[in-house]
């Protein structure tokens, strides 16, 4: 009956809708609140850090099966799960497959790889639900959420779950969810190339010191973003591109200032350009649209 993570049970059935909303707000949590009212209308509220991001009305609910009272199902989600849920809500179903066993599952993966498919794969089973992001046919290991009765996980524990329903969701390229995804992919890839180059220039220890300083500097913002082991780890669920761009700008301003301090503006500009040029065109364009470009981060 419920669209997302049906067997997750974060709130007792008796909790009222307003109580659930208030709990999200006070705890500044992200997640989904699904509601079926007594007219049988099914709606989903997506909550980002305690605030309502968007309400989605699901079509085609039969009024004859409407409950006597409004029913609510709410799930608190980690940022990655919330991001993927948002992407799923902003995508449209393209193809449904029934997967009876692992052989068919493997065949589906091969097929997606051959098609260099981009999109979200939704897996449904009677007691589990998963969302997996694919890019150019490859499963993105950091963009997975899988929920079973045991809880949430980032590992798609498929073998034990067959048969499953696998739905291919085509991403809506104009949606904020997709634009945020492109920004995040672009900025993390850029930072990864850049930090590797920095490590070559100034060494691992100095880079780790810089990472420590930058993490300390962005701590007050409470973003789920950190620089660690020569990479930028962004787990944050941003509700729109402006908010995401502001965060990334702050992080890159910090990186730029630190690099200026150590290796000067000429070389900083040079390695910012070098690493930016390594990004795929779509991600470079997404960053460029928010003025997240090399020239913005050197003195």
């Amino acid at each position, binding site marked *: 009956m419920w669209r997302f993570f049906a067997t997750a049970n974060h709130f007792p059935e008796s909790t009222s809708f307003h109580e659930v909303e208030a709990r999200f707000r006070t705890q500044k949590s992200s997640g989904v609140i699904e509601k079926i009212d007594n007219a049988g209308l099914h709606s989903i509220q997506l909550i980002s850090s305690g605030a309502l991001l968007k309400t989605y009305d699901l079509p085609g609910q039969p009024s004859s099966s409407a409950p006597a009272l409004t029913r609510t199902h709410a799930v608190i989600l980690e940022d990655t799960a919330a991001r993927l849920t948002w992407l799923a809500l902003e995508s449209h179903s393209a193809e449904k497959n029934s997967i009876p066993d692992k052989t068919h599952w493997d065949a589906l993966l091969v097929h997606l790889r051959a098609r260099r498919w981009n999109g979200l794969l939704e897996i449904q089973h009677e007691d589990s639900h998963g969302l997996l992001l694919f890019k150019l046919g490859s499963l993105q290991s950091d963009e997975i959420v899988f929920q079973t009765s045991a809880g949430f996980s980032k590992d798609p524990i498929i073998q034990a779950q067959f048969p499953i329903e696998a739905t291919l969701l085509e991403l809506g390229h104009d949606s904020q969810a997709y634009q945020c995804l492109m920004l995040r992919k672009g900025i993390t890839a850029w930072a990864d190339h850049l930090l590797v*180059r920095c*490590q*070559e*220039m*100034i*060494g*691992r*220890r*100095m880079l780790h*010191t*810089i990472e*420590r*300083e*930058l993490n300390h*500097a*962005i701590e*007050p*913002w*409470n973003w789920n973003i950190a620089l660690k082991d020569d990479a930028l780890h962004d787990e944050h669920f941003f509700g729109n591109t402006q908010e995401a761009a502001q965060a990334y700008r*702050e992080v890159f*301003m*910090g*990186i730029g*200032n*630190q*690099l*200026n*301090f*150590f*290796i*000067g*503006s*000429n*070389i*900083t500009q*040079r390695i910012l350009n070098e690493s930016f040029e390594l990004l795929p065109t779509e991600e470079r364009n997404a960053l460029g649209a928010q003025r997240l470009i090399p020239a913005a981060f050197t003195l």
Partner: protein
Amino acid sequence: MLIVLSLLLYHFQPFGDFWTDKVLDGLILFAAVAAAGLATKFRSQFHSDEPPHRVWSMFALGLWFWVAGEVSGIIYDLIYWYAEYPDLMITDLCWLVGYAFIGLALYYQYRLIFGRNNKRGTRYYLALFLLALTAAALLANAAIQTEIGFGYGWFMLFITFLYPVFDVMNGLGALYLAYLFGRGHWIRPWWGLILFALSDSINVFYWLGGYNYLPEVLQPPLDLLDLFFYSASYLVMAIAFLSLFYMSQYGASGLSNRPGPSGNNHP
């Protein structure tokens, strides 16, 4: 303080020629050991598989050869103070090998900036090294033909010309690096090379007889300037390595009062 003390000692010669010279040698040796020691300490920040390890290993090795050059210079001074110095001394070898290693460090630093993907290794550096040797040989030939080096053998002149040639190459390399690094702290150890080049250029000017064209009153200030550049070069390197070492331990903001990295407003 060390520089001021050196300049005062040099100017007033309070212990007579010989002992003042020994005290000055001791002060400069202290600065040279500090630079080499701190370069070695800074180098230990890098694992052997990291590209900067090669740069700073060569730099530190070069500086230790220069320390050996300083020590052997002091010993030669003690032995030959009242006699004629030999044509080729261990001091020269130490200095020239030191130059070669520091030049290699400079080359590796350039490769880190520009030649990330080329696999040509140190072949270009060997070519540059041969170019320096050729230039010094041509200058030695020219000196013999023009009788500038009258009374000296070809090999002695060749060794003598190697100093300014290496100075020019390393000095120009360090100058361009200074342009590239701008105000970045990574350039600071290289500033020492520029100061060395300035100091040696005064020496070369003296050796070529340039002092003959200067009024006598200008000669002591030029000597003082030479001593200033020379001692400052070691000290600049030592301080630069010390500050970079502490930055790698505690970060940039742990050493200064400048605003945090972003300087933007927090929420």
